[in-house]
């Protein structure tokens, strides 16, 4: 499956902070075919550092998508049956408007003049994209980590437009620990002299800061067990450093080539600000109007997004007797499990989507 990224431009987007972005570009990819009654569309949402390239082989880079093992013919999100859409989030750096885009008012790059964005803003932009594709109601919204936050936001804000929701390894709000890790990443970037208050475009990139931020991130994505198995105390004879050091340095430097430091600041802030129940009495109240069927998945060794956070969502849904399936899958891969544990997730996602499809067709 060879795919290429498409782009749409929308006249404007009103943000939660009160600022209006105009215009806004969205980069997205689609897989499979939209059926005649437009009832088989699934929006998949990427995690913090992902992009619109979720599946297939990119026509330009020849790279596989970040969830290619889950999306494709016969896979968990079966593109023989479903029309799958994935877009780069607002604030991103992979084709959708973000701090690295040109501010049409000044003709300069936004950099740190880019407005504060929220998970709600990201979802509102996705809703605009979905509408422009002629899709009134999504069969499902799915995603892990920050993608899962967007899933929850979709279900809460657009209950009539999502038949089902699959939030994976996610939370209704960041804990102090999650905010803390994000803050370390942000401080690493801002402490890099090359960051230059965000005005590094066209010059030397704050590569050291961004790499350190990414290294911290990667530690939180793994588990003690997976790190012991993957690296142990083995050393790289040629470099005289531990393998885990070598790995983190490699992932850090690789990240600099594909990610914008300012996007890192804005997107992690959006995650930290996210609180599904904000301004409401309870999570249950937030989901009051929802008839959406849920499949919630968490992983035993995920200490970054621990199961209790998913269970809080599940409890809130059960308190109003909403249709919610929940499983804590056994995995040693930590938070990375949602990208790695393909077999189990495929099986349950398939069964779940089949049931949702039956329900939609019955009505």
């Amino acid at each position: 499956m060879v795919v290429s990224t498409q782009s749409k431009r929308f006249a404007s987007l009103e943000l939660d902070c009160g600022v209006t972005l105009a215009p806004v570009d969205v980069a997205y990819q689609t897989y499979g075919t939209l059926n005649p009654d437009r009832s088989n569309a699934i929006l998949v949402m990427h995690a913090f550092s992902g992009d619109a390239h979720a599946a297939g082989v990119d026509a330009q880079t020849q790279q596989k998508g970040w969830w290619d093992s889950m999306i494709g013919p016969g896979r968990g999100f079966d593109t023989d049956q479903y029309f799958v859409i994935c877009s780069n989030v607002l604030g991103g750096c992979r084709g959708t408007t973000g701090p690295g885009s040109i501010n049409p008012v000044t003709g300069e790059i936004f950099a740190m003049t880019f407005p504060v964005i929220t998970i709600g803003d990201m979802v509102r932009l996705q809703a605009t994209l979905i509408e422009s594709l002629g899709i009134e109601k999504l069969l499902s919204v799915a995603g892990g980590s920050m993608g899962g936050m967007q899933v929850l936001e979709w279900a809460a804000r657009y209950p009539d437009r999502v038949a089902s929701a699959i939030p994976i390894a996610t939370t209704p709000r960041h804990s102090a620990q999650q905010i803390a890790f994000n803050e370390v990443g942000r401080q690493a970037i801002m402490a890099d002299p090359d960051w230059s208050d965000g005005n590094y475009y066209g010059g030397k990139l704050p590569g050291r800061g961004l790499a350190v931020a990414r290294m911290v991130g990667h530690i939180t994505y793994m588990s003690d067990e997976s790190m012991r198995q993957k690296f142990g105390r083995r050393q790289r004879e040629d470099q005289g450093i531990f393998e885990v050091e070598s790995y983190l340095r490699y992932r850090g430097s690789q990240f600099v080539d594909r990610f914008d430091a300012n996007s890192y600041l804005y997107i992690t802030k959006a995650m930290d600000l996210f609180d599904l129940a904000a301004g409401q009495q309870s999570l249950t109240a937030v989901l009051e109007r929802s008839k959406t069927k849920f499949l919630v998945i968490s992983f035993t060794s995920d200490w970054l997004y621990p199961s209790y956070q998913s269970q809080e969502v599940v409890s809130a849904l059960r308190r109003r007797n909403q249709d919610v399936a929940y499983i804590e899958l056994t995995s040693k891969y930590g938070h990375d499990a949602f990208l790695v544990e393909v077999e189990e997730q495929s099986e349950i996602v398939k069964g779940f989507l089949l049931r949702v499809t039956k329900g939609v067709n019955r009505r």
Partner: protein
Amino acid sequence: MTPANNNDPFVRDLLGRGDYAIFSEIVAPRTCVLDLGCGDGELLSWLADNKDVDARGVEMDGAKVQKAIAKGVSCYQGNIEECLADYPDHAFDYVILSQTLQEVRQPLQVLNDMLRVGRRALVAFPNFGHWRVRLAHLFTGRAPKTTRFPHDWFDSPNIHFFTIDDFEILAAREEWHIEKRVFLDGNREVKMLPNLLAETAVYLVRRHS
């Protein structure tokens, strides 16, 4: 599955289970059913396909939950005794508890919760008063082991050993209304002396309104 004929003492089984066959006759079409300890969801899946019920399950064992969800059953991985408190009153038409009452720590609380979240409770349990259990105990002087209670005392999931009479006494004390009771020996229906002759009891219970 063929529903049991009233004149036929042989109850046909559903998915290899006599109690499932009784459940399947009792559960009305297009109702909402919660199965506590639903395993891999085979009963719920059958009820969804054949009776068009809104089927929900609770199961502890992750491998079974995975199978249930893969079958298209809305299954929640969790503890029966902890999860019931979350559900609103009368959220379900039936709450099923099959062959598990003897394994829960607080059976009375579970039954009361079932009657709160469901309009009716469907309970099936093994009868510890069956003559084989009595004989095994009488003759060996040890914790009885039978085909129905195959475990050694030290690795048995069963932590309460009660009989049909015990259940009837509790139901009377709690003033539950028993709408239906079916007693089975294997897949055969027992009409006389159930406390002595039945291996399994199936009760349809509701609260007096």
